[in-house]
């Protein structure tokens, strides 16, 4: 069957992969140089890969920050092996405290609480804004969306390039802030004022400038995605024929477009607070360490929280929707049957996107909120769980009766389902004020949102990488090591995050560099509600699970790079998929399609009765060859 799906000459090594150039006429006649081809490229596929590689690097870095923090939690103020010395040479004795033995000689360096705080703030910032969003939205969106809708490129290729460069610059600003005196931002990824304006480091100003750049990048990207999906759909690609991944990206882009600007406004205001010493978020009579400051006052700390969470909550759906989109594509492809409830999925994603704008204050029940407004936000929070559950249910029901094909992308997609389920369901108690007051700012919350984002979203992203790798390179990633990567990641992810639920329910607060030692039964025997030894012991176990999780990523990293040149060679449509992205040459040339594809059917026509092949691609030419008398 492979032959019939190849509309275009398959990609041959050495033959011009840029055959699409002919159609571009005046644009480029000569082969572009290295800088033009890889750094200043306007091709959506190159930009997608740029985003992907940079985002993966940032995620690895963010993971490393977390490992340092877990060491500090498990062994507070104990010398950190290997890493301690390196940290000391970078950040100095102020931040990496020397640890001395009985005779006074320095035996190593430990993390200071300040360094812990800055790693904590930057871990969150990097993972969310420099890792997951660029990978899920920008990388996959850029590479896949134009191919899926049959478009030659994004609508505004140069704005697309500008978007990546703004993102990269924002990342550089964030990284540079580690090296300035006082270190990077220390007020948490949420940067609550007045804390953010009173910590004596310029890291916060760097953070804000970095954020403004990242937000600008996201806005440019969002405009581009929406315009592309609305304007550049190929003939016949009606809204209800769009693969659901495109819908997910479409809703995500709208969330970014309309939810990010208020945070940009808030960022500008906080930047004014930090640099021009205004008092937007500083109340009258603010005292720091018992001393009343020079600020004029009159501002409102809660204003920052409102503006921050107006983005912050929709951001959750920015993190999860693209991953859900990937999972749907992978599940449909590997169950070899149409996805269950396509229309429900579409309306649910729209509903989630819409409702995500009016739930934000459920992050703020602890701020002295009145009963009426709390009731409103509890109601919207409960309502938004309905479309989310519909999406998850459709995913599960899609498995029903399918002849499931197990491969690495499918394993990650299947892993996503229960992991996201745990993350989502444990969120319900946090959406209700009465239970949230107890669980707020404990490890329970950490466990909850990491289940959503780490084994949830990131598993979805891994599925996407394994799934579309053959389209990007013409080769498959190694299946055996892929499975090793999956099973190890699954086990260790759960070993890392599951114990945190227990710790949180026992009352262990987050953001403590000593992991709660000062609240432990061992430190204050006889006091009520102290943390028992069994809960404290979990800190040590989590550290080892986290290290193991890090080691489990090594097969992936090696597999990723090794497969580029040594993976198993495959044709243009190795997964026998129906969507148009698999109907292009591999890798797709500049301009993507030799001729404009014509779409004649929905995206998931698998195992159509009466067809010889168990998949029927969306575009017309194939249908003519594949079957007569269809529908």
């Amino acid at each position, binding site marked *: 069957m492979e032959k019939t799906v190849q509309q275009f000459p398959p990609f041959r090594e050495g033959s011009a992969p840029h055959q699409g150039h002919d159609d571009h006429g005046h644009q480029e006649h000569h082969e572009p140089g290295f800088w033009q081809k890889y750094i200043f490229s306007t091709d959506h596929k190159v930009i997608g890969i740029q985003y992907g590689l940079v985002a993966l690097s940032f995620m690895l870095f963010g993971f490393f920050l977390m490992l340092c923090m877990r060491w500090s939690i498990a062994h507070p103020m104990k010398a950190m092996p290997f890493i301690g010395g390196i940290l000391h040479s970078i950040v100095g004795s102020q931040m990496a405290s020397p640890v001395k033995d009985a005779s006074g000689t320095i035996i190593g360096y430990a993390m200071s609480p300040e360094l812990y705080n800055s790693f904590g703030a930057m871990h969150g910032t990097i993972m969310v804004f420099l890792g997951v969003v660029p990978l899920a939205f920008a990388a996959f969106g850029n590479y896949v969306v134009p191919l899926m809708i049959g478009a030659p490129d994004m609508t505004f290729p140069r704005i697309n390039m500008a978007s990546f460069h703004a993102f990269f610059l924002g990342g550089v600003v964030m990284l540079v802030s580690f090296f300035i005196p006082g270190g990077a931002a220390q007020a948490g990824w949420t940067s609550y004022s007045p804390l953010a304006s009173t910590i004596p480091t310029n890291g916060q100003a760097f953070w804000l400038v970095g954020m403004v750049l990242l937000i600008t990048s996201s806005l440019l990207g969002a405009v581009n995605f929406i315009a592309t999906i609305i304007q550049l759909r190929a003939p016949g690609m009606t809204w209800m024929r769009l693969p659901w991944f495109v819908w997910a990206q479409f809703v995500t882009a709208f969330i970014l477009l309309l939810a990010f600007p208020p945070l940009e406004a808030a960022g500008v205001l906080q930047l004014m607070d930090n640099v021009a010493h205004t008092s937007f978020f500083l109340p009258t009579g603010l005292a720091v360490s018992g001393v009343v400051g020079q600020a004029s006052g009159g501002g409102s700390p809660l204003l920052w929280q409102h503006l921050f969470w107006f983005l912050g909550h929709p951001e959750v759906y920015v993190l999860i929707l693209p991953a859900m989109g990937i999972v749907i594509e992978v599940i449909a492809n590997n169950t070899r049957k149409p996805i269950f409830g396509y229309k429900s999925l579409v309306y649910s994603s729209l509903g989630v996107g819409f409702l995500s704008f009016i739930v934000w204050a459920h992050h703020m029940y602890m701020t002295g909120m*009145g009963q009426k407004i709390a009731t409103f936000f509890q109601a919207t929070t409960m309502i938004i769980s309905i479309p989310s559950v519909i999406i998850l249910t459709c995913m599960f029901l899609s498995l029903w009766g399918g002849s499931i094909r197990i491969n690495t992308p499918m394993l990650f997609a299947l892993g996503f389902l229960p992991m996201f389920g745990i993350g989502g369901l444990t969120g319900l108690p946090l959406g209700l004020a009465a239970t949230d007051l107890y669980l707020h700012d404990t490890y329970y919350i950490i466990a909850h949102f990491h289940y959503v984002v780490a084994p949830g979203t990131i598993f979805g992203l891994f599925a996407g990488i394994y799934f579309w790798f053959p389209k990007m390179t013409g080769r498959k990633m190694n299946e055996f090591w892929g499975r090793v990567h999956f099973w190890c990641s699954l086990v260790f992810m759960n070993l890392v995050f599951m114990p945190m639920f227990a710790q949180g329910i026992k009352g262990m607060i987050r953001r403590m560099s000593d992991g709660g030692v000062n609240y432990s039964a061992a430190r204050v025997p006889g006091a009520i509600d102290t943390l028992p030894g069994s809960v404290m012991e979990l800190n040590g176990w989590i550290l080892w699970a986290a290290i193991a999780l890090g080691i489990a990523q090594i097969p992936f990293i090696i597999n990723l790079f090794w497969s580029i040149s040594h993976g198993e060679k495959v044709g243009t449509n190795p997964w026998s998929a129906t969507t148009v992205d698999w109907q292009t040459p591999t890798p797709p040339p500049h301009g993507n399609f030799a001729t404009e594809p014509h779409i004649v059917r929905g995206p998931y026509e698998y195992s159509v009765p009466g067809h010889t092949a168990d998949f029927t691609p969306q575009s017309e030419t194939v249908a003519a060859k594949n079957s007569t008398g269809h529908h």
Partner: protein
Amino acid sequence: MSESEHPVVFKDYTRRCLLVLLAVACMTAMMIATSFSSIGSGSWTPKVALILLIASVNAFVIAGFLMHLLSEKKLVYTILAFTVFFFIGLAGLTIWAMNDLPVGSAKH
């Protein structure tokens, strides 16, 4: 007006532009007059409300005629409707949240 559905006649167009300019100038003058008037006798609230009302009409004229919003496509209306809705949500819910305090809390 936005595309070449109606061919542009430059003279007519100039006249229309000048009318809009005149309207904007008049409304600006009205806002200033309100601001310095004794409406509300010492209280700013009625004045602010009136001025913002005039400013909204002014904005409508600019958006409607200068930005051709009155003859724009449905898609643009849809996008702007969502935007305005979310803006009202942002401002409205935030103000509500700031003023709704738990029962029994001291007024600040």
